[in-house]
Each structure stands twice: as C-alpha cells, then as structure tokens.
C-alpha cells in the first residue's frame, strides 16, 4: 500500500484530464505522474532519508509529494514563513534529505546532509522504466512539523496506511465531473493542504492552486477558473466576507461547495456566509494533523436543517463539528477515563485506520485499544453531533469548576460592538484561576468593560463573567488564523 496508487489510478483512467493548475500552467494526471516519477528516479539512490519542500502552493507541491511516495521516502513540506535559523534547525532533524526550493526561496543555514535543488514545477519525461512504488503500508508517507506554539516543533508522522485509510474511506474514485475544480489556498505544509491534493487526485477533481491566500485573489481566481469546490480556514472566510461586503455583491455561478475547518468558526460568520453564498453547500470538517485530516463532518444537509429549524436543539448544530466519519469511532471521556453520555463535557478520543497519533522520537500515542486523545474538550448530543469547547490546555479551572473559553467567546462575539474576543485563564489568589478576556471592538463602536460583563452575566452563569477585560486593536493570530492564546494569557497575567 502506497499513496502513489492514487495518482497511478487517476493517470490510468483519466490521464489526459487536467490534474492541477497554477498561474496559467497545468499538468494532466499523466504529466503529473511522469514528473513525479522523474523526480523519484533522481532522488532514489541518493542516500536520502527524507524529501522536503520549501515553496508556496504551486505545481511543485503535488510533484514532490508523489515523487516522495514513488521513492518510498517521507514527504516533509516546510513552513516558508520560518526564519533561516528555524528552518536550519528543522533541516538538521531530517538530514540526510533532498530539499526542493520554490522560486525565490533559499536556505542559507543548511546543515550537513541536505542537498538543495530547484523544486520541479513543470512536466518532465517519465523514466524509461519507472521503479514501482514500495508497498510497505507501515512506511512513513508524510512528516509534518507542528507549529510549535508550545515548545519546539514536534514531527507528526503519517504512515501510508493512515493516509490511504482516510482517502479510500472518504473519497470515491473518479467521482468528479470534468468541469469540477477545487481551489486550494491552504499552504502545502498544512495537513488540509496535503489532504486536498490527495482527495482531489483520487476523486479526479482538478486542483487550482492559489500560491498564498489573499481575499481579492481568491475571489478573482474562483470566478476566472470556474471553481466548484473550496476549502477555507475560518480567517480566510472572514476575510472573503469582509472583501465581498466592501466590494458589493458578487455571484459565483460555478461554486457548489465550501468546506471549512482548521479552527473554530464563529457562528455569526457562518450565518453571514450562508446568506452571502445562497445555494452553496457548506461542510464543516473537524480534524487534526495526527488523524490524517478530517474525522467529523457537519454536512450540507445538517447545515440546512439546523439553519431552518425552530428547535433550539437542532438549530445549535450550526455550531457543531458534526458526526464522526463512518470509518472513525469517537468517545467523550472524563478525566478518569470513563466514557460519558450525551450532553456531558469531557475529553474527545478517536479511533480508526486514519488515526496516526505518532511523533518522531515519542512513538505512538495510541492506547492499547488504538484510541487517540485529541486533547480537545467537547460533548456530543443525543444524535451524535460533536460540539467542541477548545483545547484541554485552554480550560479555565476556577475554584474547582472547569470553564471552557469557547462559550464565553461566542457570547462576547454576539455583542453588537464586539469584533473579536478571546478568553483565557489568569492566576487568581481567590480562585486559583480567573476568567479574563481580550476584546477588539468594531470600528466606531463603543462598549465599556462593565457593559460587556453585564452582557455575559445575562446569558451565562456568573462564574463565566470575565473578571478582567482588556481592549485591544487586534488579537495575535498565526498565519493560519489560530489565535495565539498563550500570548494573550501572558499579557493579561502580567497586566
């Protein structure tokens, strides 16, 4: 088993169809396979242990991804926003490695054992006798360095069997019509960027690459390329909506489906998106790097049913991440490991073939029965819809009571003057930890801290009312739109 099989099948059945486009250049499935096999032949026998890529989204990403698979080496896409020192540190951890550099990228602090070369971004003739991809299902297909917001980056490992379980469990081969095109704006070093390439290849849906996200370019590309499907992280959708609000209504006649994930989507953003893109199917995807991408889905039908329902128990599902995939089992457990029932909040565990749960040097984090602790807190309703409350580390323990920041943030965001809000724990002599919030007001809007406290008090239990509210002009985010809670926590603790 090797993920190169996905491309082999696409090239076998639909070789002349366009596989991927970027900036006016395209490769068919046959050309993509030839280019990947050509690179694999160059790399094989070089004594390398990894194949790395430093590039924005472009034709190089699928070529190098599949070349790694044909060569039987782990693919390591690197974050192009790292400093040269950080990059050098990561390269030292994967040496000996081949490193493909995109146009305009350089590595100046290269440790021994790293062989740099321009990343191929065009078709190439296949070798006369391309070597068959090695079939070891336990071989490592992909190694992703986590963002390292808490300590040194960890190297998450995904084996061929994990990635293939995800793709074969969720995608039907060749199901896309020839007119379909998926806009990929998530960077190549993010699990969603990789799974987009693999899903689209196996589903034979053309990939259109946006080198790096910008809302105006996203809209322009979606219209010019007749994009039918897109995946966005929450900040991308926020910025697309802001752009369209400022620019005036735009119709997307080809657009059929938008999937979102990679962070908590504020309820009012998805509500506005449903208005702005009438007739477009919305899917919420919840997943982690360690689970080879999506493990839960809130489907378009779920969105429509929740949006149209007067029943608050159905309506609230717009804030849910949906139900586990048919191939994934999910449990919510308490701190002692007991499995909890509906509506009971605890820690989310998952199990399934796609769940890798493994870091280099740390081994497998799966328990003896194969369960993986996601480190997310949440609860399921009676029908199995999962509601996330945030990372386990972010829970505020106030006087022995566990408080999740998520519901307080949602409540603050529902205030008409609030543009953005994050809730964290700060040390408290009285309670151990206390609730604190950093709030960004809308331009021209005003609200005093006491007014916001009163707003929360009217809607949630008194223990949820932030004892401290700090106003900010903006909140710190990483480049994929994850709010940096640690930074806020340190600032508010020091205040």
């Amino acid at each position, binding site marked *: 088993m090797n993920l190169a099989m996905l491309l082999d099948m696409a090239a076998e059945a639909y070789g002349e169809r366009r596989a991927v486009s970027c900036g006016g250049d395209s490769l068919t499935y046959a050309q993509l396979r030839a280019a990947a096999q050509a690179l694999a032949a160059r790399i094989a026998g070089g004594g390398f242990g990894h194949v790395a890529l430093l590039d924005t989204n472009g034709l190089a990403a699928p070529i190098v991804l599949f070349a790694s698979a044909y060569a039987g080496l782990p693919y390591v896409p690197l974050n192009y926003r790292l400093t040269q020192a950080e990059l050098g540190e990561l390269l030292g951890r994967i040496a000996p490695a081949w490193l493909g550099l995109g146009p305009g990228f350089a590595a100046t602090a290269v440790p021994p054992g790293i062989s740099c070369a321009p990343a191929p971004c065009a078709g190439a003739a296949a070798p006369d006798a391309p070597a068959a991809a090695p*079939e070891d299902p336990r071989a490592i297909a992909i190694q992703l360095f986590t963002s390292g917001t808490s300590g040194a980056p960890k190297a998450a490992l995904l084996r061929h069997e994990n990635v293939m379980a995800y793709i074969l469990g969720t*995608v039907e081969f060749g199901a896309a019509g020839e007119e379909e095109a*998926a806009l990929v704006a998530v960077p190549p070093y993010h699990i969603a960027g990789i799974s987009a390439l693999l899903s689209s290849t196996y*589903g034979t849906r053309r990939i259109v690459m946006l080198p790096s996200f910008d809302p105006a370019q996203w809209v322009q590309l979606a219209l010019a390329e007749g994009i039918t499907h897109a995946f966005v992280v929450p900040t991308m959708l926020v910025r697309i909506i802001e752009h369209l609000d400022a620019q005036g209504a735009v119709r997307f006649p080809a657009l059929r489906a938008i999937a979102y994930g990679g962070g908590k989507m504020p309820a009012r953003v998805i509500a506005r998106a449903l208005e702005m893109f009438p007739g477009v199917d919305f899917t919420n995807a919840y997943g982690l790097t360690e689970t080879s991408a999506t493990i839960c*889905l809130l489907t378009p039908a779920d969105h429509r049913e929740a949006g149209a329902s007067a029943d608050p128990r159905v309506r609230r599902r717009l804030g849910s991440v949906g139900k586990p995939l048919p191939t994934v089992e999910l449990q919510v457990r308490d701190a002692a490991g007991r499995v909890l029932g509906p509506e009971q909040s605890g820690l989310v565990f998952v199990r399934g073939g796609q769940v890798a749960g493994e870091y280099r040097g740390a081994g497998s984090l799966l328990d003896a029965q194969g369960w993986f602790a996601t480190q997310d807190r949440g609860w399921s309703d009676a029908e199995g819809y999962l509601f996330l409350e945030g990372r386990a580390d972010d829970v505020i323990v106030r006087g022995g009571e566990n408080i999740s920041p998520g519901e307080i943030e949602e409540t603050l965001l529902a205030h008409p003057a609030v543009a953005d809000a994050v809730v964290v724990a700060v040390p408290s002599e009285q309670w151990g930890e206390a609730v604190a919030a950093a709030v960004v007001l809308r331009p021209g809007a005003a609200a005093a801290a006491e007014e916001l406290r009163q707003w929360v008090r009217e809607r949630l239990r008194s223990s949820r009312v932030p004892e401290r509210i700090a106003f900010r002009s903006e909140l710190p985010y990483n480049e994929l739109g994850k709010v940096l809670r640690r930074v806020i926590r340190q600032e508010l603790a020091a205040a």
Partner: protein
Amino acid sequence: MRIMKPGLRLKSAVCSTEVMVIKAPAGEAQVSCGGVEMLGATEAGAPARLDPAQAAGSLIGKRYVDAEERYEFLCTKGGEGSLALNGVALQVKQAKALPSSD
C-alpha cells in the same frame, strides 16, 4: 488460496485487472478473475485463458464485495475478467456519498 490482508495487491492471470484488498477476515481465500485465481503483484503465473462465462469485466475505482461484505476489494486497474471470491461472483459496492471536506 492465499492469506488475504488489507493492502495486499493482486493481478489477474488472464486480463489487465488489478485489485487491492481493503477488508478481509483472518484466514485464506481464493480470489479469481475471469475464472482463474489471481496472482500476487510480482508473481508470474502459468498461461491461462479467460473463461467466457466470467467476462463481465472489472472497473477501475469500483469496490467489490461478497454478499456479507466481509471482504472488500478495490479495483485499481480494470479488465475483461469478472471478479469472484471462492467461486462466487463479487458485487459492486454502492458508492458512499460523503461531501468533500478538503
């Protein structure tokens, strides 16, 4: 007969069909294509002819299952022969309809 385990790849002895085992219970089974037992991906078989009674064909990308769905095979390359398990024809599994999530 051979031991079936997920990830195992087999090729037809009589046509271009190739399959990968997706799901299989422990133990041995015989998978045939076009009436002739399938070979391991790198094995060479004795010369054999397609049984005209088992020439309904296989389609790339389709999943083939037995009646109880204890076994599942993914056709990775199509061909002229029909797939069968222990002499009983395999059926095409109905496609799941999951929305795109990436």
